[in-house]
């Protein structure tokens, strides 16, 4: 699976990348929303894994832009974030129904194994 990993922390991104690559996926790391848009154009990804807390933009802004392109309108997106579910339960309908987010993981309690399982099955995990 070709994956775009939109993660602003370089050290953490590198750790996720290694785990995903070991599981046989091709991963492109992007630290910013703009870089992810460019990378998606190049890679034609099968999945985007993204943090909602980005520098300069919110992840939701990124998703609005991302979904505005026909090619990526239905691409699976997995949210892996430091924002606890309780802080955006009101926005979950927006994320799932309008922005097509397939699953949500709260970073502090999401192990690499959990992430890999989720990537492999793309089963939605709801807050």
């Amino acid at each position, binding site marked *: 699976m070709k994956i775009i990993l939109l993660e602003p922390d370089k050290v953490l991104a590198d*750790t996720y990348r290694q785990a995903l690559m070991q599981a046989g996926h091709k991963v492109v790391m992007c630290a910013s929303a703009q870089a992810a848009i460019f990378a998606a154009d190049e890679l034609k990804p099968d999945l985007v894994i993204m943090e909602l807390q980005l520098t300069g933009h919110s992840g939701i802004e990124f998703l609005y832009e991302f979904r505005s392109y026909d090619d990526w309108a239905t691409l699976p997106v997995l949210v892996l974030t430091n924002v606890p579910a309780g802080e955006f339960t009101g926005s979950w309908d927006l994320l799932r129904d309008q922005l097509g987010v397939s699953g949500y993981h709260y970073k502090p309690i999401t192990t690499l194994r959990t992430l890999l399982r989720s990537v492999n099955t793309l089963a939605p995990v709801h807050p």
Partner: protein
Amino acid sequence: MAHVESQQLLLGLAEQLKLPLLQIARRAELSSLGQEVDLGAIQSTADAALRLIDSYVLGVRLAESGQESLVLEPVAVSSVLYDTAQQLDSVAKFYGVHLELSIGGKYGPVLTNRQGLQAALTSLGMALIEALPALDSKHLTLQLGAHRSRYGIVAGLYSDTQTLTKETLRRGNALVGKSRQPLVGVSHSSGAGVFVADAILQAMNLRLQTTRHNRLYGLGAVLQSNNQLQLV
């Protein structure tokens, strides 16, 4: 530092500390998945987190003890910047950030609290190193520099990113402890290192300011040189 400010800073710090703990936890797990993990990187991450906690405690203690009991000593700004670069070196490597010292010129000693100044610059440096890879920085270089301005000697940390503005800092100060990303244009995290640095400097009757040097944008403190000390 008022009680509310101290609590807001603590909230920002708690949020910030999730990052190194998360990095350590996931790298440990990566090792259990059979991948080779750099133990030195884990140690640097933990050391940096401990230093940030120490800096926060120092800021609160300095603020509580008051200006009158602040221990002042003649300090060479260039030596503080050099030591700060040493402390930041290992973390900078893991983030792919190049550290550069720009301490040419004679500035003479300043009368300040050396421990406080160094803790402030180190906290600031950690925050900027973490932030730079996700910014518009072309060169991923953090310059630790001193220069003379009409207000005094400026000791600061500089990069080529243009988001380090006065307005960003002003908004950040208003949002610390209330927003997940008070410095949204600069950092994806709580940016606690920047606010801890500001708290320490304020306790020393100084202030964190935006500054420009060598066409770079930065944050730093203005220190007053002391002519009498130069004669000693």
